[in-house]
């Protein structure tokens, strides 16, 4: 069991004041920033990131396991031309990735896309046709978006390196 020192002499106290100000000044002179300048820079997420999901329509066997395991009832089965296919409602999806993991034929895949915007709730529902396309919505900017990758750095915490 430990105790912290209770009484401290005024000189040590002054030293601690100076230490605090010194630490502040140190960061003022040599700032370490970890901000991602978002619309200009966009992060490339690591493989295995559980982003938005896409379907491979031809591979799907319609086993309904994905709809069964879905914790949020986001995935539902629809019958399209006699074939059972999943559709997803991103308004409900919690991106747990259970459906991708449970699919016995790997008809579902996690993409690295996580930043999408929709104008209304109907657009959030992806029918099998829309679901089986690569969905990537680049941020609307005049300039091209720099793709960066986050790396952990011993000195700066997180640095963003350009992705090539």
């Amino acid at each position, binding site marked *: 069991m430990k105790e912290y020192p209770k009484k401290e002499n005024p000189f040590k106290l002054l030293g601690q004041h100076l230490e605090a100000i010194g630490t502040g000044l140190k960061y003022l002179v040599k700032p370490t920033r970890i901000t991602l300048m978002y619309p200009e820079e966009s992060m490339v997420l690591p493989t295995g990131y*559980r982003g938005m999901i896409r379907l491979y329509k031809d591979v799907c066997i319609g086993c309904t396991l994905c709809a069964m395991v879905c914790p949020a009832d986001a995935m539902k089965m629809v019958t399209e031309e006699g074939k059972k296919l999943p559709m997803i409602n991103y308004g409900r999806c919690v991106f*747990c990735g259970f459906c991708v*993991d449970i699919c016995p034929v790997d008809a579902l895949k996690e993409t690295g896309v996580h930043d999408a915007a929709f104008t209304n709730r109907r657009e959030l529902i992806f029918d099998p046709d829309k679901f089986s396309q690569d969905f990537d919505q680049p941020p609307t900017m005049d300039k091209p978006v720099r793709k960066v990758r986050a790396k952990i750095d011993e000195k700066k915490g997180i640095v963003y390196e350009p992705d090539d």
Partner: protein
Amino acid sequence: MTEEVEKILKGGLEVEIVPVEGELNVGPQHPGSGHMRIFVRLNGDIIEDVDLDVGYVHRSVEKLSENRNYIHLIPLIERPAILDSIHMNMAYIMAVEKILNVDVPPRALYLRSFAAEVNRIASHLYGMGIFGVFMGHSTAFMWGFGDREVWVEILQALTGARVTNSYILPGGVRRDITPVIMEMTEKAIKYTRRKLNDWKGIFVNNPNIKARTQNVGVMTKENAIRWGAVGPNLRASGVAFDVRKAEPYAAYDKLDFEIPVYKEGDAYARTLVRIEEIEQSMKMLEQIMREIPQGNILSDRFFKQIPPIRLKKWWEGQHRIVMPGYYASFRPPKGEAFARVEAGRGELAFYVISDGTAKPYRLRMITPSYRLIKVFRELAKGSRYADLVTIYGSLDYFPPEADR
């Protein structure tokens, strides 16, 4: 009006001394209240009584659990403490595993400890950040969130999501650690050790913070036990209790670590306990990376059910397991189980009753913050109004976790 004047005249101009008493409604929309209403009864600057109106972020997890399959509950159970989700997930899965009677392979146990300790560091940094801004120290707030980002990045690489990890499954974990993640963790440990020195300079050893926290919200050992405090708050009051030591789960029986215990029981001791726990967690992470055994990360009972083609692709290719169809709606045998873990804020307990169907009959969830409601109320009595937020922040109370 005239009556009053007459009264005063009769009483010989006696001035009644009126104490400055009043009630103050702090929250639910207030910079220092969080998701609750703190009804403060003030006498001058001293708080006479505090009424905590909690429940603003109640999600009814326990009732919803009775209508969900076991596997569907994993994301739901994480939600109350989203920044401590590994622990939430682990405690629930441990209870389910007890009913299912599954053995977890040692590598998976080490991985659970790994994820849990990373999560604990992130959770403590978050807590210290909030604590800092409650005392007006905005740098601690930003640093807490910024330095947490490093650990969240590791969790993202390991589990595929920043906070809602859903990493632990009955019988094992979903993904294996890779050399890349180990390298990331080593760098993150070095970074956090460096940064903790600066944390000490600007926050922990700062005389301003010391003045604000020392002898504030003092919880004696007896009171801590009587009020049911848990976690770092309990350990700061001189009670050496940690579920990781008392009832080792995951890989904690094989890990060397100390539990920091402080005698004082005030806000400063609680902060020191958190700082030292971060250091201990980093020590544990190093040991896990050194000693992690080779092997499977999912119990053989489920591993055998995975189709061989998928096994080849995912397990051998990407070091992650996929779920067998069994998980979609499994029915555990009749039974009941109790499991507890040491979450970031303290002891977290789950009690699950299975009646043989695919849904739990009853799920009871006792979160550490829930127990802090009583502690908060008792500690706030008699303190100064400015210390209300200090006590609140030092307890690391997280309203959604308490409301469930």
